């Protein structure tokens, strides 16, 4: 069926895969009609997709350094775009984003703008130049451009802090989904999730991760878009929701002003289960100050350009030109999901609060709502709650509470879609969380094995030994992440945002100025990374412990302070010390043109 080179056959391979997955969905739908239990459907969806990723991971095994670190630099533009989109869109994007928009409206949507706008910075400031450099990891660029082990080591530290903060949230998400779908306790489900993640990356490194991420993107995008379109059509809201929900958005505004946002007393709120929230903010109206919106968007954009697991995806393209185009494709594939999240939030909210719709619950009697099947299911899962605070027997807007995850997970059921869709959504969430976790764990393990072990500790190590070290580190970091995830210290979304702030505090300016300012030198970069990370972290600790903060910089945007310190210290220290030598200046000149040899050799 398939002849010749794997790369040449990619469209066909993934075409067959997509067809097979759609056929699997149809088989499950038929199974449901024939009486297959919802639990069996959930298990089939998660087990089947994870098994496919594991097979891809096994088939991609390699013993070569450039295949392990950068997938042999032969990933075509569009496929790298899909892999980056999967790498990028985490469990948080998939499960929590629509919920965030549902509850917080405009103020939250700064994240949509920030998490897409950052790609403009990636494309124009960094990705093509780092691709030309020929590095394996982000610290590889810092260490070679600025020289010296200390700068390399600091880059490894910033990378590890940011990525590790991020990865615990992703392992947590895989654990949550695995525990729901497979019906096992969370503490064990976390390790089931971890093993699935490691199966994709252990044998093939970046090559294995690339080809599983493409497969995971296909699953997650189908799992996100199919319910949105289906619900929209079923509600009669519009055939193509993205262009047709204006009336629904307006209707929500109308209902909001009709109901009003009644504030609950603290005593009433204390009875609501932890983690659930009511609708307290307008759906589409502007509810944040310009600076609150802009500062959050800006922090996410600069963080995007500094997160190593994204940047290293562009090291895998065949050329500099392809790296640039690939950023565009990545953002296109991300756009497909991000532009759908507000639509899902709109459909979900309207179907719950509009009394003219069969699914609407506001205005019904409390006892009637409590007897609905889906309410009972999600109430048991601790994701939904109603309470008659004012004692009038009727459910008011301020008496209905929901978990953020429920918007994605429960809306198909509320809208009356068959259970097979819920199974599909679980598989999609698993794919989203796994693909991001894989990228992150690989980024950390590669930085430690390549930059710390090979470049600093044992530069004479042979390839075989290096790759063994890389794999051992992968497992160790994975288990460390899973152990912390099992403790459930932070929420998923909060720790994701922190990761962006850590990354931008330490890495944004050392990376950008490394390409765009020839005068930047080693001392400056060291000061920029160290002081940026330290001041950002100190600000976070200060605000977390009751500090008032300044300039409206919150614990979600502390990277703005960190990166400002980083920029100032890097420029001042660079100018106070001597200019980089002629060889370094020539290196920067060569990075700036796409033609010619890369700075670092194919095998290094």
């Amino acid at each position, binding site marked *: 069926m398939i002849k010749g080179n794997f790369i040449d056959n990619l469209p066909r391979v993934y075409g067959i895969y997509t067809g097979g997955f759609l056929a699997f969905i149809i088989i499950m739908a038929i199974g449901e009609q024939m009486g297959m239990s919802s639990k069996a459907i959930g298990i089939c969806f998660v087990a089947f997709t994870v098994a496919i990723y594991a097979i891809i991971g096994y088939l991609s095994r390699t013993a070569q350094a450039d295949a392990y670190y950068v997938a042999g630099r032969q990933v075509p533009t569009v496929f790298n775009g899909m892999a980056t989109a999967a790498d990028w869109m985490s469990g948080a994007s998939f499960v929590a984003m629509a919920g965030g928009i549902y509850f917080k409206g405009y103020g939250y949507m700064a994240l949509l*703008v920030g998490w897409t*706008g950052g790609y*403009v*910075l990636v494309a124009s400031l960094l990705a093509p130049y780092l691709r030309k450099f020929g590095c394996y990891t982000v610290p590889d660029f810092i260490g070679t451009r600025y020289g010296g082990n200390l700068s390399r080591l600091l880059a490894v530290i910033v990378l590890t802090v940011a990525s590790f903060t991020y990865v615990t949230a992703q392992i947590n998400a895989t654990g949550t989904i695995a525990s729901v779908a497979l019906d096992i306790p969370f503490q064990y489900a976390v390790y089931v999730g971890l093993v699935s993640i490691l199966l994709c990356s252990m044998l093939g490194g970046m090559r294995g991760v690339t080809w599983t991420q493409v497969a995971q993107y296909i699953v997650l995008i189908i799992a996100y878009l199919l319910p949105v379109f289906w619900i929209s059509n079923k509600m009669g809201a519009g055939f193509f929701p993205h262009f047709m929900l204006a009336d629904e958005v307006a209707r929500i505004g109308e209902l909001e002003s009709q109901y009003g946002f009644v504030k609950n007393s603290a005593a009433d709120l204390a009875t609501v289960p932890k983690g659930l929230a009511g609708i307290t903010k307008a759906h589409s109206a*502007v509810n944040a100050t*310009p600076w609150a919106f802009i500062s959050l968007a800006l922090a996410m954009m600069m963080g995007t350009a500094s997160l190593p697991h994204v940047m290293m995806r562009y090291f895998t393209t065949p050329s500099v030109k392809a790296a640039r185009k690939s950023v*565009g494709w990545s953002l*296109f594939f991300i756009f497909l999901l991000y532009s759908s999240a507000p639509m899902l939030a709109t459909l979900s909210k309207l179907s719950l609060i509009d009394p003219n719709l069969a699914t609407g619950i506001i205005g019904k009697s409390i006892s009637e709502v409590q007897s609905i099947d889906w309410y009972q299911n999600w109430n048991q899962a601790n994701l939904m709650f109603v309470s008659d605070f004012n004692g009038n027997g009727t459910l008011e807007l301020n008496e209905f509470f929901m978990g953020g995850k429920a918007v994605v997970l429960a809306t198909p059921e509320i809208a009356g879609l068959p259970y097979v869709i819920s199974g599909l959504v679980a598989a999609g969430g698993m794919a989203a969380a796994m693909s991001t976790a894989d990228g992150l764990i690989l980024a950390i393990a590669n930085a430690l094995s390549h930059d710390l072990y090979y470049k600093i500790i044992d530069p004479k190590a042979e390839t075989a030994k290096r790759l063994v070290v890389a794999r051992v580190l992968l497992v160790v970091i994975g288990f460390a992440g899973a152990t912390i995830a099992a403790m459930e210290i932070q929420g998923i979304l909060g720790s994701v945002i922190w990761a962006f702030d850590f990354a931008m505090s330490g890495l944004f300016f050392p990376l950008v100025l490394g390409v765009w300012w020839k005068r930047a030198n080693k001392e400056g970069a060291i000061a920029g990374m160290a002081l940026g990370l330290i001041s950002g972290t100190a600000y976070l600790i200060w605000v977390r412990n009751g500090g008032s903060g300044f300039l409206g910089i919150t614990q979600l945007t502390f990277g703005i302070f960190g990166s400002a310190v980083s920029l100032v210290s890097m420029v001042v220290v660079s100018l106070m010390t001597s200019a980089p030598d002629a060889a370094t200046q020539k290196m920067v000149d060569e990075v*700036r043109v796409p*033609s010619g040899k890369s700075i670092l050799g194919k095998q290094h």
Partner: protein
Amino acid sequence: MSKQAQHWEKTRGLLFMTLAIWFVFSIGIFLFGAEMESIGGPFGYPLTYWFTCQGSLGIFVILIFWFANRQEKIDEEFGFTEKGDD
């Protein structure tokens, strides 16, 4: 001025143009979020809402492809295009 310096000057010009457009749609317009709210946007959505869900996001996608094409043209003009790839 050497070929390389000219190439870099044009590349930098393109960067500033790209960043200017990026700035307008990621930061500039959101200074006026409240003012744009009452204006009707595409497909009947309020303008601010449309920009946050689709407008800015879509403009970024187009901007990156436009940037990539312009940069390729600049590289070709000065003969810095890579050989032997897609």
